[in-house]
């Protein structure tokens, strides 16, 4: 028989963390939502006017940056998947005793500061660098310039978010029951058929988790566009950042980031409805 005290134990354990998350995540979201419906300026103060027009204005004024953010993040996510799947596959199945070293190679970028990694790309892609000369020779960079182009920002996003793609892919490939692959071969499937009909479907949860973990931060990013892009590469994150921190136009900025959050949350809840929170937490077996 459990006493009331025992039944209360989990709540005592949960309370500090959940209260922290509630006050400093949920409540701020509410305040941001409220701010997005106010009108005013920093000097005159803000007043609640239920200004839904903030949303209409924000979306019509910055639809280009919204679409650009989703376009850049989308292309970067596809590139991450194309690079990340073979990489995760090689680590899971082909690396032998070098497995840990290769995994280390994947997470190594995390041990240097995000900004410095991005600035390092600025060095690599700067006008005088050998990489750009090679690209120019191959007619891939006709004006001898890579910085301040879409390609530079997409390359930066791809680089910075690749580990977020590789790690869930690796986890799902590693969990794969190899006997299923052998069974496929025994039944005379070619390597290609085994891959398409066994490996790929079974690693789908990893693929989806990887896509989410790459696309979401990439869509909201403004660091890559700031360092590697020019004015024509500004993403929605750049607009939110400059409205909050440079021009102090809080209401419209709040409306913009609320819209971004809403779009992403819809996608996320859709995913959680089908896959549960467990897959995103890195473990499919919930303790009983």
């Amino acid at each position, binding site marked *: 028989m459990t006493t009331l005290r025992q039944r209360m134990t989990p709540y005592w354990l949960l309370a500090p963390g959940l209260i922290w998350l509630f006050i400093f995540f949920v409540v701020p979201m509410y305040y941001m939502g409220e701010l997005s419906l106010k009108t005013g300026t920093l000097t005159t103060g803000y007043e609640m006017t239920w200004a839904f027009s903030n949303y209409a204005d924000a979306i019509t004024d910055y639809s280009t940056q919204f679409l650009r953010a989703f376009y850049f993040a989308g292309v970067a996510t596809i590139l991450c998947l194309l690079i990340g799947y073979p990489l995760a596959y090689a680590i899971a199945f082909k690396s032998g005793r070098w497995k840990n070293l290769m995994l280390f190679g994947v997470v190594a970028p995390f041990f240097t500061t995000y900004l410095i990694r991005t600035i390092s*790309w600025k*060095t690599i892609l700067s006008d005088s660098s050998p990489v750009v000369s090679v690209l120019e020779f191959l007619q891939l960079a006709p004006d001898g310039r890579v910085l301040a182009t879409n390609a530079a920002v997409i390359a930066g996003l791809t680089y910075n978010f690749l580990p977020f793609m590789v790690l869930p892919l690796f986890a799902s490939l590693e969990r794969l029951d190899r006997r299923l692959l052998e069974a496929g071969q025994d039944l005379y499937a070619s390597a290609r058929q085994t891959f398409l009909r066994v490996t790929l479907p079974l690693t789908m949860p990893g693929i989806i988790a990887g896509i989410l973990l790459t696309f979401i931060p990439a869509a909201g990013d403004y660091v890559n566009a700031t360092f590697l892009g020019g004015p024509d590469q500004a993403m929605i994150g750049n607009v939110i950042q400059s409205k909050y921190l440079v021009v102090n136009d809080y209401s419209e900025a709040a409306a913009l980031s609320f819209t971004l959050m809403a779009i992403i949350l819809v996608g996320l809840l859709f995913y959680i409805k089908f896959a549960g929170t467990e897959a995103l937490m890195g473990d499919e077996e919930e303790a009983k």
Partner: protein
Amino acid sequence: MRAWRWLRENSILIIGLLAIAYMLVPILVIAVFSFNDPPGRYNFEWAGFTTEYWADAFGIEELTESLLTSIRLAFFTAIGATILGTLLAIALVRYQFFGRRAANLLIVIPMATPEVVIGAALLSFFLTLDVFQLGFTTLLIAHIMFSVSFVVIVVRSRLIGFDRRLEEAAADLGANAFTTFRKVTLPLIAPGVASAAFLSFALSIDDFVISNFNSGSTVTFPLYIFGANQRGIPVQVNVIATMLFAVTIIAMLAVIIQQKRAEKAAAMRPEEVANKPAISIPV
């Protein structure tokens, strides 16, 4: 012909190794350019080898100050987030309770929210509420908030592989709940807790976006770099980044070695315990 076949057979491994090289090249560039001797303020073009900036790594006061701020912030973040996250993980793995789904959701959603939105929301909150002065305190609040979820994941995976009979044995031997936790549970999950603390330290010291919104006039290491970008980033930034990289790797190796040792010492795995006589269970 044979070379072609070899290439075909090993194509995936080759692609994998190329991808790893792609991951590592920018890090190498950072390290190499810490030995550069740029003539002007911009450190983008190779101009000659020097160790001058390594000798003068902490010569820029503003930069050193920002680094110390970052380390202090990461230290307190690690403590706060690890305590909150470990308690959450224990509750989620060990107990069945009403509201579990909601708790899971509250832990997962911050991780899946773009940083710019978290930063903007917190700034809206701090501005409207007007209780907290933007600065170290608001940075600490924000950093603990976004690190907690990651701590939960790391500690949780450790708890799931935990043999609960060890705790029952302690209880049978007359230990109360608190003693059992202190003498059995905590030492066994300690490696997981340590890696979680390590992870939150790393997340905090690296954070730029959320800090950018909530720092007020406090300058952390990433914020210093951002500010210095317009006027040219000093070579010392590369030096310090290379140092941080080296220190992190050494710390990580230490944690791994410690973890391997702890795993050998304690009978963690259920299957191993099952094969041994019950008497050998250490309490």
